[in-house]
């Protein structure tokens, strides 16, 4: 199987169709296309051996091609509540910055996450967070809270946990349950724009990319039965209703699945029965659930060892 590398192309709308066609010819995938005015952003998976061809075309079109290590990763940015204490700064800044390297982020405000003794999360919220690949918790400025009180919010979270907070000298090991701690992104009431804040966001992106790479490496030991990107393309071809969905990223790629932003009751059978060229149905290769998010469809692809074969 060809190794695919995630890339982000930024350039003018003019002739960007050539790039889409090239991607079809090479067997790569367009994950997301965002047109803003005369600019277009294409997030794509490019076969490793053909990267130079894509680079050449992007240079011809006077666009910029950069690696986007978080492509195909869906991240939950969890803030204790949705009150003005945490939003729009810093939680939104964190979410926005994570999108630069290609991630899809969802903001989740817990209903009762605030406070020291009284903070708690609900079963529904934990399940919603577990639908994502990585969870980023944005906490405040007191080290006492971050190390001793807030970690109870991690109970029941099965995905890797990244924590952001104000104190710079905290170590990841001091926070029980966290996989990574990034300081200098605490509670602020201004936009994150000072040098040390931007540096912290850069470190966050690097750290999260590393975690995503680790998950991919683990996955490579027992590959998925079908590439999520391929399943995504099949849905685009076989379920035309997806083109009329107005949500951003109607098909959101995850490391081990896809979130399909169509109502479950109406479409789940159609998606289960979707057939690949090899003659197998998607339901043989993946578990299809009702998502905790807005009654959407969540596809989690099984591994090769579960299914017995991979396509």
């Amino acid at each position: 199987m060809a190794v695919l590398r995630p890339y982000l192309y930024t350039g003018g709308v003019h002739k960007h169709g050539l790039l889409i066609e090239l991607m079809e010819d090479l067997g790569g995938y367009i994950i997301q296309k965002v047109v803003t005015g005369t600019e277009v952003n294409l997030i794509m998976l490019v076969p490793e051996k053909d990267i130079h061809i894509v680079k050449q075309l992007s240079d011809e079109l006077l666009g910029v091609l950069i690696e986007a290590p978080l492509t195909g990763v869906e991240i939950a940015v969890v803030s204790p509540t949705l009150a003005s204490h945490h939003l729009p700064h810093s939680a939104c800044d964190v979410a926005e910055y994570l999108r630069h390297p290609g991630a899809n982020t969802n903001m989740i405000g817990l209903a009762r996450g605030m406070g020291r003794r009284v903070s708690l999360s609900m079963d529904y919220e934990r399940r919603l967070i577990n639908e994502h690949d990585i969870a980023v918790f944005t906490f405040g400025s007191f080290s006492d809270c971050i190390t001793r009180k807030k970690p109870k919010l991690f109970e029941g979270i099965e995905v890797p946990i990244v924590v952001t907070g104000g104190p710079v000298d905290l170590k990841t090991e001091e926070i029980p349950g966290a996989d990574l701690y990034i300081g200098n992104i605490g509670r602020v009431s201004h936009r994150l724009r000072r040098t040390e804040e931007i540096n912290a966001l850069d470190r966050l992106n690097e750290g999260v990319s590393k975690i995503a790479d680790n998950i991919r490496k683990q996955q490579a030991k027992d590959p998925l039965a079908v590439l999520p990107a391929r399943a995504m393309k099949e849905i685009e071809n076989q379920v035309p209703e997806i083109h009329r969905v107005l949500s951003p990223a109607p098909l959101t790629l995850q490391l081990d699945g896809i979130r399909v932003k169509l109502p479950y009751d109406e479409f789940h059978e159609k998606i289960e029965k979707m057939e690949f060229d090899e003659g197998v149905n998607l339901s043989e290769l993946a578990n299809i659930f009702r998502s905790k998010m807005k009654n959407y469809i969540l596809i989690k692809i099984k591994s090769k060892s579960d299914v017995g074969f991979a396509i």
Partner: protein
Amino acid sequence: MDSLETFVVESAIDSEQEFYRKIIEDNLASLKLAPAVGRIKVVLRPEDSLFQMVIILRDVGTRVTTIDIADVEAKPVAGEVMISIKKEQYIPELLGKLWERYGKANISQPDRWTVAIITDKPAEEAAFIREMMVADPRHRLHENLVDFAIRATPEGFRVRYHLYKDNRFVFVASEEALKHEWIEEAGVMLDELTEGGKK
């Protein structure tokens, strides 16, 4: 008293003190409270879930009349009063008052700095307009102070006590039931802050 003559944030850990100083600065700025605050002291005790804040306000009670923000000139021949605006920030309030008195049809704005009013008695009306109260900054101060206090406090601290008397503002917030001595401590802080400026 100068604005922000004293600005103290106290906490057991220095770095956390700095974060809260910044949060308070930002919130003071976004609510445009900085000119109104003379002295402010905040004490944070996360281990007790306690936030105490005392503020001594400056005298911002001066009401704004038209003459403070504009030149008013009577034009008896044309039957007009011309107002030349000097401070743009009060235009909405000024226009509101003028519309109420003269009606929208009699008021025109040839440009952004000028308001012309058609009237039968230009001289008398000009004299009236000069002394007319346009805005009272004290009016919204209390509301803004409470809003500021809530924004600056850690979000989980939902048990609150506040006192606003003369030019003093005391605010205590916690996650637990408030202890009486915490409020007394805040009272002592307030006394210290009041004395602090007398030297």
